[in-house]
């Protein structure tokens, strides 16, 4: 098969009708999810709207102004009207700086008198104007990013993706530059452990984090600035990505958009399954955050790869594919073109078993074939990595081979020290040098290799597609929440009303007002 970007990959014969059926089923699932999403808003979504309106700062205690504002509104059960409305009203009433606005909101009665029609209309018009000009600025910022990318050009695929995670943004910058100089195309800054559970986005530049660096707008800015400079020096555009899944999904998406990030880890399923975040909450946040990504041309990365770090990668291969169909449908609903839907998958089958390469080829090629236009992201072995770095290195190399031959779009390079610590400078160098070698050595093999008809690879791919379809039938019939309740994904069961953040969800009122949403939906 020939990919849109011109690369050839081995042909994989699939039952087209089964594929269409999977898409139709995923669409049904998306309908159900969207039906709920359209009737609700969340504290994070509302805060995102306010952020667009220019409220980027935080109070002395470090609590963001948007949190203080939205908490006051939500505490009064007024979120359904839309935070932008109440803030607009406060401003019209003379409140200038953020804290003054907070004060006003704090003085709102539980059941405030409905404002006069034209008064309300005026507030909304003003806010719309504000929002439009802010959106225009946002556009020009992302346009600048796209221009630089076009000017410098991108590296050939797969893009080599590495993570930095020193906990200190300044060390991160140093490590990111080093990685870029060693050949990395994409730099991901890992978040501090459990930031996804915080219902606010920390503020400013940070130098202390656990297992990662706090995702803050300022940290985004610092890193993007460094990478812009490095991109120019190297004459190769360097992509930046970070993590949005979690309780602040849409706000981080906004900060990422504003600071010109290129990609974003963005998946409600990750939060639900691995962070025990309430599904209603995060599905609403996800939709809004994806609309922001669509507006800002940010590639989302989904987290299906994580399912097979808990479930058995071989037995649960079909759950990855089923979830990808659902994620694709949800992404399309949020206005994301295929070119922005970076579905995730990975090379995780237990290396103690036989014929793992045939089965990994089957999986990687299946995903590639099902989503030819998507910038799919291929994750390396992690779960079965061992402290024996020489074995782990060998294991990663097989993933490099599969990634190259099956024409993956983005490859997160495995680290030989995966079982030990976050990557060291030298770990990244070793991974990049080896991947370069493999890409070079296997250059034409994608168009050279054919897999035997009716062979292990083909049969395995067809089996996985079949099982994915069965699972999708179930999900479409019983709904996503029910399926998650049965631990269909990642062997983890979650309930619709359990998990963190449900209290942050509110029904939209009949006169719900969110100028940002209007712009995104119009875009």
């Amino acid at each position, binding site marked *: 098969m020939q990919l849109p970007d011109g690369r050839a990959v081995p042909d994989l014969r699939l039952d087209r009708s089964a594929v269409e059926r999977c898409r139709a089923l995923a669409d049904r699932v998306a309908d159900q999810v969207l039906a709920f999403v359209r009737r609700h808003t969340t504290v994070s979504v509302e805060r995102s709207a306010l952020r667009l309106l220019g409220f980027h700062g935080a109070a002395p205690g470090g609590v963001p102004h948007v949190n203080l504002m939205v908490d006051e509104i939500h505490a009064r059960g007024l979120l359904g009207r839309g935070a932008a409305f109440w803030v607009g009203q406060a401003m019209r009433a003379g409140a200038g700086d953020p804290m003054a606005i907070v004060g006003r909101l704090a003085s709102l009665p539980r059941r405030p008198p409905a404002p006069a029609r034209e008064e309300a209309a005026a507030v909304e018009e003003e806010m719309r104007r504000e929002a439009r000009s802010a959106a225009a600025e946002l556009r020009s910022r992302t346009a600048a990013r796209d221009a630089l990318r076009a000017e410098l050009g991108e590296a050939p695929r797969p893009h080599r993706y590495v993570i930095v995670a020193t*906990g200190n943004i300044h060390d991160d910058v140093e490590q990111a530059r*080093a990685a870029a100089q060693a050949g990395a195309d994409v730099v991901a800054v890992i978040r501090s452990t*459990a930031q996804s559970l915080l219902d606010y986005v920390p503020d400013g530049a940070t130098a202390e984090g*656990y297992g990662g660096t706090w995702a803050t707008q300022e940290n985004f800015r610092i890193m993007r600035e460094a990478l812009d400079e490095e991109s120019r020096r190297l004459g190769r555009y360097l992509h930046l990505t970070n993590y949005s899944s979690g309780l602040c999904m849409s706000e981080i998406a906004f900060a990422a958009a504003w600071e010109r990030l290129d990609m974003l880890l963005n998946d409600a399923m990750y939060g639900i399954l691995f962070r025990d975040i309430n599904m209603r909450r995060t599905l609403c946040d996800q939709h809004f955050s994806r609309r922001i990504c669509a507006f800002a041309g940010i590639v989302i990365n989904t987290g299906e790869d994580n399912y097979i770090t*808990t479930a058995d990668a071989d037995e649960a291969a079909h759950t990855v594919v089923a979830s990808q169909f659902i994620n694709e449908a949800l992404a399309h609903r949020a206005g994301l073109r295929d070119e922005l839907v970076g579905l995730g998958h990975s090379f995780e089958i237990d290396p103690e078993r036989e014929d793992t390469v045939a089965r990994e080829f089957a999986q990687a090629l299946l995903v590639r074939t099902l989503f030819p236009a998507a910038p799919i992201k291929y994750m390396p072995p992690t779960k079965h990595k061992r402290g024996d770095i020489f074995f782990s290195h060998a294991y990663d190399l097989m993933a490099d081979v599969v990634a190259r031959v099956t024409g993956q779009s983005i490859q997160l390079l495995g680290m030989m020290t995966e079982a030990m610590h976050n990557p060291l*400078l030298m770990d990244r*160098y070793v991974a990049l040098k080896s991947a370069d070698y493999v890409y070079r050595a296997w250059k034409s093999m994608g168009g050279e290799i054919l897999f035997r008809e009716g062979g292990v690879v083909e049969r395995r791919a067809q089996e996985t597609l079949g099982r994915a379809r069965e699972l999708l039938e179930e999900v479409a019939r019983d709904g996503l929440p029910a399926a998650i309740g049965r631990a269909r994904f990642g062997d*983890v069961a979650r309930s619709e009303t359990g998990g963190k953040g449900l209290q942050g969800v509110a029904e939209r009122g009949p006169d719900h007002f969110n100028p940002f949403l209007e712009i995104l939906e119009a875009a």
Partner: protein
Amino acid sequence: MSGGPHLVRPYGDRRGDGVVQLSFVLPLPPGERARQAALEVARKMGLEGVQLASMEPAAEGYSFFVLYGRTPAAVDAAALEVAEVVVRKKGFDELNQVALRELGRRIVVLGACTGSDAHAVGIDAIMNMKGYAGDFGLERYPAFEAVNLGAQVENAALARLCAERRADAVLVSQVVTQRDVHRENARQLVDELERLGVRGGILALLGGPRIDHGLALELGFDAGFGPGTRPSDVANYLVAELLRRLGRTLH
């Protein structure tokens, strides 16, 4: 090991030649100066006959080195004191019978991965029916009443539950170890248990890929389990230890 000392040294090509392999990055661009600096670092580590195998341009201003050399370091393996959980293992059925007979009730065990650590796979491997490496998890044992609370469990909440449920044992998993979070976190649980006055009556086990028995003891736990632990190791240890505390022995 026999009585006498047992000196051991690294072995590459010939017994006791002391050969070790080393790699690291220095913030210097590749060149003769960087080579000398790397050799000097190796010498400061006591290496002799250092061979610089490679000096790689890891990044601008950084060189990655691979070296080989001989260390004079020798260790008396016999003199080392070794903290180790030793479990004489019984089969699944036998262990259950013995436990139920001797205790006359089921052993209550709570398991969790605590603090902000979201890595549940390890504790699941020990607790869940399914188990690990073809070895049943504690939930499968009739002799155990095992409850797996999963990951991201607050220490305070876990301690409270231990008290309420009158748990015989609490199994804590710690996987994330950056900046030593696991140490603080593990100690915190012990404090909470003491605050509630239940520490004495409960067996506290700590486990994780970077945990060993020595560390667990240091952090105030009764036992520690590292990578590759099997549920049956834990089951056997628990039964034996509980009996021991009742003045009986498992035989």
